[in-house]
């Protein structure tokens, strides 16, 4: 373990500790249970791996199981983000959840097909492959949320914004590093470690700042004009759209 990675690892543990303490002091633990479960699990696993690395230098057997556990909890974080962002928008929440479920389903189906039809293919020897695919699924889930919130101009609070940004940076860096690692081979391992650990430290720093205190999601202000005026506008909208259509019918022969 290089001195840089060791420093980043220790720094990460410290920040995770701060985030967990602030979750209690800032009263945000109950609002984002999956997120804090994710951070706590990473903290516990990283701490255990660090101690084991000191006692016995061979920690490779434990690295991937830890990655899988945190990966699945990470999916819970994306569902939690979707639940908060689309709290009052049932349809959009459903779209984001279904996109992720379908992507995950497709990945697991592909794993099952490969395991069944390719005799030399084994999930335990292709861990990086599977992790990359699952990270891609997380990336697609995050992009769906970003696309929908951007398209409809939905406001996002400081806490969730930080969660999305930090998680997005880590997932993006993981997709890049895992892909390059698979194609470049063992030569890429030192760079892989640096990218993964640095990206995670950046994500943790963003989370620490964004989740320092609890901030509720912004709510849309109800219209400040009278119901009658609003309905007048609505009626006019329909009328004008209809008349535009008439214009088009008369303008261009179809």
């Amino acid at each position, binding site marked *: 373990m290089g001195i840089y990675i060791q420093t980043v690892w220790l720094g990460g543990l410290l920040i995770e500790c701060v985030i967990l303490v602030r979750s209690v002091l800032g009263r945000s633990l109950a609002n984002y249970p999956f997120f804090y479960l994710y951070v706590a699990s990473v903290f516990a696993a990283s701490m255990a791996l660090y101690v084991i690395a000191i006692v016995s230098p061979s920690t490779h057997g434990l690295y991937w199981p830890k990655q899988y556990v945190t990966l699945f909890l990470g999916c819970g974080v994306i569902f939690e983000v979707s639940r908060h962002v689309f709290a009052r928008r049932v349809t959009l929440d459903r779209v984001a959840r279904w996109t992720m479920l379908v992507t995950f389903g497709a990945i697991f189906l592909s794993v099952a097909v490969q395991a069944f039809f390719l005799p030399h293919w084994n999930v335990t020897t292709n861990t990086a492959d599977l992790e990359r695919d699952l990270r891609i699924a997380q990336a697609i889930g995050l992009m769906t949320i970003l696309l929908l919130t951007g398209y409809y101009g939905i406001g996002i609070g400081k806490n969730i914004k930080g969660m999305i940004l930090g998680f997005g940076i880590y997932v993006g860096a993981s997709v890049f590093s895992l*892909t390059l690692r698979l194609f470049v081979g063992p030569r890429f391992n030192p760079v892989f470690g640096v990218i993964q650990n640095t990206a995670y430290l950046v994500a943790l720093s963003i989370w620490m700042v964004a989740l320092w205190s609890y901030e509720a999601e912004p709510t849309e202000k109800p219209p400040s004009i009278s119901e009658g005026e609003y309905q007048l506008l609505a009626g006019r909208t329909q009328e004008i759209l209809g008349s535009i259509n008439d214009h088009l019918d008369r303008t261009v022969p179809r």
Partner: protein
Amino acid sequence: MTQLIISLLVGVALLVFLYFFVRRSKPSAEGSAQQLREARQTLDSLQFGLLPNDLVHRIFAREDLEYVLSNAPADVQSLFLSERKDIALGWVRRVRGAILELMRFHRGHARLYAQLSLATETRLALNFASLLALCRFLQIAVYLRGPYAAPGMVRTVAATAGRVCNISEQSLQFLKVKQLDPLNNTPSSHGASV
């Protein structure tokens, strides 16, 4: 190799999304009095600015070109083509601007409603996207080859705009004014008929 490209594309796409997410400005409070006044102005400009029938016919009228080509000297012909090109480009810009306004208005109001129709929203988004892309292509075609380069595209723009208006009309059903009961609205029901 395909796997490599797809994975890297997903990574790049996520980073691009995050970049725009960070740069995103605070959403405006839709439904405020000022917003609704602006929306009304937008709708008015849509009515009179999107596709006035005589204007479109005039801009892309082939008989004008034929008349100028057969009766006017070369310098007048080139002046005519240049001016018609500017007008056509201006028209496409106006249509594009109006479609963007309609899109902004629709999205701003649709986001306030919990139960959106996914099918309608998807159709609208695709129509808006195709219409905006068509306007862009039309702009390029007119810019490169003049106002009479793509009459088919003009028709397609108009037809797609019509489709967008149709779907918008359906999706704006939630804003529909309650129809007044004709019996309650007639003078006779109040006993004031002559």
